[in-house]
């Protein structure tokens, strides 16, 4: 399996997209979308998109072996596990009902 060479044009395109998304995230942050949660979700969605672009193209994962895909996905999955299960405690604290 020899390495795949990504053309310069792709790099420039991705770069352009990243710049646009950066501008977008700044713009969105300054308008009130109604709830803080929505603002956060949008900001995170943009960040994730940017990260995915970098991973896929700048880091060549799009052209890499399945193993690399698994490693990358695994890394993020574990982050989600850590955050998710920790939150399972924090979010459900105090939900226990008991008579007083």
């Amino acid at each position, binding site marked *: 399996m020899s390495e795949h060479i990504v053309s310069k044009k792709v790099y420039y395109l991705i770069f352009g997209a990243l710049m646009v998304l950066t501008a977008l995230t700044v713009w969105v942050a300054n308008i009130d979308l109604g709830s803080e949660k929505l603002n956060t979700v949008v900001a995170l969605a943009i960040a994730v998109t940017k990260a995915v672009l970098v991973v896929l193209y700048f880091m060549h994962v799009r052209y890499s072996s399945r193993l690399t895909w698994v490693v990358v996905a695994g890394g993020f999955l574990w982050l989600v596990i850590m955050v998710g299960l920790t939150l399972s405690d*924090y*979010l459900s*604290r*105090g*939900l*226990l*009902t*008991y*008579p*007083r």
Partner: protein
Amino acid sequence: MQLPRLPFTPEQASTVSTEVDALYTYLVAITLFFSLLVTVLIFYFAVKYRRRSENELPQPIAGSVKLETMWTVIPFLISMTIFVWGASLYFTLYRPPKDAIEIFVVGKQWMWKFQHTEGQREINELHVPVGAKVKLTMTTEDVIHSFAVPAFRIRSDVVPGRYTFAWFEATKPGRYALYCTEFCGTNHSGMTGWVEVMEPTAYQAWLAGGGSDSPAAQGEQLFQSLGCATCHRADTQGRGPVLTGVFGKPQRIQDVGDVLVDESYIRESITNPAAKVVEGFQPIMPSYQGQVSEEQLLQLIAYIRSLGAPQQGTTMTNSGAGQGEPTTTTGINPDAQRSNPLGPTSPNQIQGNAPPSGLSPQGRRSGQTGGGTSQTGGNSNQPRGGNSNQ
């Protein structure tokens, strides 16, 4: 369920102890079964198929999906029975019942302090009547401790900055050991005591003898002496909200929404009033952090709670204003819940901004030390603080 008590088990002195022992017995049986199964098989095979000559070459056996499925599914099903049983018991253990006598517990390095609703205070010794439900509202002045009474099969950590709960109903008069079971420093193993379970009459007599005022009454005195009463007046003329009848009801908080007024909320209102400001009021209430101890906090809470209480008596503290509520006091109003699910509003919740005030007087000055050393001479030789070493 009355199973025979296994040897090497502690006395069964509470209602839940038999239930816990039943689950224990079940698990012992499972353990015996599987360990014996495995051991017997190993011995049997090891003898039967021992190597008889150096050049033996046994036939390979590939495996069996049927067997694999069997020994995946059966243990799984068994373990699910344990899970369900264990979980339901857990809910019993951590859901204090209605109509319980309430006792305040404060842990500190290295002693347990108790205060009864009638006012008696005790250290490392807790008197309770047999056959009555007792609810413990617990916190700590310094590090995490854990309150455990093996004979009752109960235990709960006490965590700085928040309240935790435990309950029990003793079934036999007697003296039962009480331990701190979360490592808390030099004298961790000395942080023990006794729970004295008494006949109700004896308990009443004990209560009558030499108690001080009830926590609520002491709280009332504090309420005057600390100047709370200047702002919180019985009429609506004060600068602060009227506190009568607030306990157990939702309160509307600026920028947050409805929050249930419970122990943790009041604690926070006193130690860090700015955290939640009642709608329609200015954040002018000063913080009393560092001026009231954990025990005094509990007394103030008892007092405020009693303001809404229609009747007095042993169950007084539980009947607070919240009695009219449908008792689903999740510690959090559904709306408030949604607005900020993490908001520190419930008994179990983080009280991030509610430092245990007992620490603060000295803690402030030296930067970090645990407070209250003066109260227990024995403790003062414990070097404290994170200074000097790394």
